[in-house]
Structures are given as structure tokens and as C-alpha cells.
């Protein structure tokens, strides 16, 4: 995934395999992984002659933002999928918390 995110154009499985030079992977392994990621919706692929060209469905930042929205419970559905540590507050209430924090730190 990192390699595909780093490249601006769509790559074939062979090109991806060449770019993962530090690990000696069989071309079929690369193809299987790419195929699986496509089926799960993380990659798009287009026909190019006899090969497929793969491209990320979303940017890396978009996925991080999606996780963070869920993590901070901002999706609004309050499902029980995650348990979070604490939620951020804003405005005058944050001021109250900030005061409590300085008091605790001073003691």
C-alpha cells in the first residue's frame, strides 16, 4: 500500500514487485495481496493489456481521517464498536478543565 501511495500513477503487479526490492517476494505473492486489497475495496484496478494496473481507492490521509473520526466518536452514531479514552470539549467548558489541570499541576 505504501508503495502505491508513494507513486502518483497506477502500477502493475510487476512494477510493485520491483519496487519492493528489499524483500524477495514471488510475483504471485504480490499479485495475491493486490487482488485481495482490491476485493476489500482499498484499491481500484484498470485493465492495461494483459495486466491490471492498481491504484489506491483513497489517499492515506483520507483513511487516517476516517479512523480518527471514528476514534473521536464524531460519526454521530454512538455505536459500541470502540471504547475511547476521553472526549475533547471546547469553549467555556474546556476553560474549566484547563483550570482544573493547572491546579493539579501546581500542587
Amino acid at each position, binding site marked *: *500500500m505504501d508503495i502505491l501511495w508513494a507513486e502518483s500513477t497506477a502500477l502493475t503487479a510487476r512494477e510493485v514487485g520491483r519496487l519492493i526490492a528489499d524483500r524477495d517476494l514471488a510475483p504471485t505473492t504480490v499479485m495475491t495481496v493486490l487482488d485481495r486489497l482490491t476485493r*476489500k475495496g*482499498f484499491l481500484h484496478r484498470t485493465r492495461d493489456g494483459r495486466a491490471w494496473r492498481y491504484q489506491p481507492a483513497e489517499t*492515506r490521509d483520507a*483513511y*487516517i*481521517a*476516517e*479512523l*480518527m473520526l*471514528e*476514534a*473521536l466518536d*464524531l460519526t*454521530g452514531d*454512538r*455505536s*459500541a*464498536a*470502540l*471504547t*475511547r*479514552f*476521553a*472526549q*475533547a*470539549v*471546547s*469553549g467555556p*467548558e*474546556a476553560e*474549566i*478543565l*484547563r483550570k*482544573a*489541570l493547572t491546579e*493539579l*499541576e501546581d500542587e
Partner: protein
Amino acid sequence: MITAAALAALATACAVGSWRFTTARWTSRAPRLAIIVWQSLGVAWGLATTGAMLAYAVQPYGTGVLPGLIAFAHGEPPLHAWDALHVLALIAGLTSLAVLVVVLLAAGVQALRARRRHRMLLALISHDDPGVPGVRVLAHPSAAAYCVPGLRSQVVVSEGALKLLSEDELAAVLAHEAAHVRERHDLVLLPFAALRRALPWSKVVSDAQGQVELLIEMAADDRARRYCSPRRLATALLRFGTAGAMPTPHGMLGLHAHNVMARVDRLIKPAPELAVSVRYGYIALSVILLTTAPYLWVIQL
């Protein structure tokens, strides 16, 4: 008739009890006990409400709810003829029972799906940090720390959170998350989230869900404080609360600030434990609730 009336009375008692319990003040002193009371109230209410309708419906059989339903399922003819009211009660009872079961299952499946996708994405974009072994790190400037529950639970923190917290505070936060993982708090929350989806207009249900959410956080705080300084946990909480880097689109802020302060207060100045007699009283209440409802399903008064 008496069984139906008793079940209806139990259902009403549970509803009124839940409504009163949403404002109970002792809960923060014994969060685990309060969670148990909430769970038994919920189970008893569900069984009693559906049971009351079904008990009335199977009256023509002259047996209890469960034997009556089994007889009905086998197509046995009742002692007395059916009339419109009993048929109506049967339809209503079976429908509400089905709704409760389906909603619970749907919530479970939905949570599992959301988690699976979350985990997949984590595997793709999170990274390890040698400073915090066993924890996935997300490259995002906002502060977040949470766990993705499941058989292989994962604790996740954002880079923003790593920057925000001192080493001790981070350890406290991780101890808190480990407590969630260990006690499977997600399973506690699930039925309440499901019930809220089934009855979205009910203020008592949404209050109950909010209460349980807060109570499991307090329970996790209690476990975490065994391994770290409660003061560090409190300052971590406050730091999180004031690090509002992401804009919040919906109006839940008042509640959150209140909850954070409630947790900080009890970490800094722990209230005395609940008296033993009171504790046992509530445990007895839970046991009675959890046994009465199924008992009334089986026997005929």
C-alpha cells in the same frame, strides 16, 4: 391473568426504576455494581414487557408463558377458544420479542463489521513506535487513544496524543485501555447501544446508555489506578479534554465536559466506598430481578 399482571407490574417497576436510577448519585462510588444493576434492569424489563403480552396471549392454554408458546408452536388446540384480544396480544408480544432479538443481533453484526474495517485500515496505515511497544500509532496531530475490542484487541494512540502526554500519563492511559480490553467493556455497552437504536425516542434508554458509557470508563479508571498514579490519569484526562483540535459537529459537549470532570474528581478525591449493607442490597435486587422475570415466564400463577 395473574402472571400477565405480575409481569406487567415488573415491567413497569423496571421502567420506573431505570428512570429513577438515571439520576442516582452513588453510582460513581461503585461503578461495577451500578453496571450490574443496569444490566439486570435491562434484562428484566425486556423479559417482563414481552412476557406480559405473551402471558395474556397464551391464557387460553391455561399454562405458563413458555409452555403455552410451545403448545402454540406445536399447533395444539387451546382449552378455550381464541378471541381477537388474545390474538392481538400474541402478535404484539411475538413482534416485540423478535424486534429485541433482531436489534441486538444487528447491533452485534454491525459492530463486528465496523471493527473489521477499522482493523484492516489500521493494519495498512498505522505504525509501531519503539517507545510504546504493543500499541498501534496513527499519524494524526489530534489526540486520540482508544481500543478496538475483539478477540485480538488492539490499543491505538495518535501521534497527537503521544506529543500531548508525559510518559507517566501515557502509561496511565494505556493501563486504562488495557482495562477495557481485559474486562470486555464493549460487550457491556453493546445491548444498551442496541436498545437505544430500537427505542430512539426514549429518554430513559438514551440516559441509560450515557450512564453505562460513563460507568465503564470509571470502572476502567479504577482498574488503571492500581497500576499507575491516579493523579497522572486525571491530568491525562484533562489534557485530552482540553486538546480539542478536531471540530465537533454535534451538540454533546456539555455532557462530555461534565463526564470528564466527574472522572477527574473521583480520581483525585475518592469518595468513601459504599456501605456493605447497601452493596448487598443492590446485589440482592439484581439477583431478584434476574430470577423473577424468567421464573414468571415458566410458571403459571
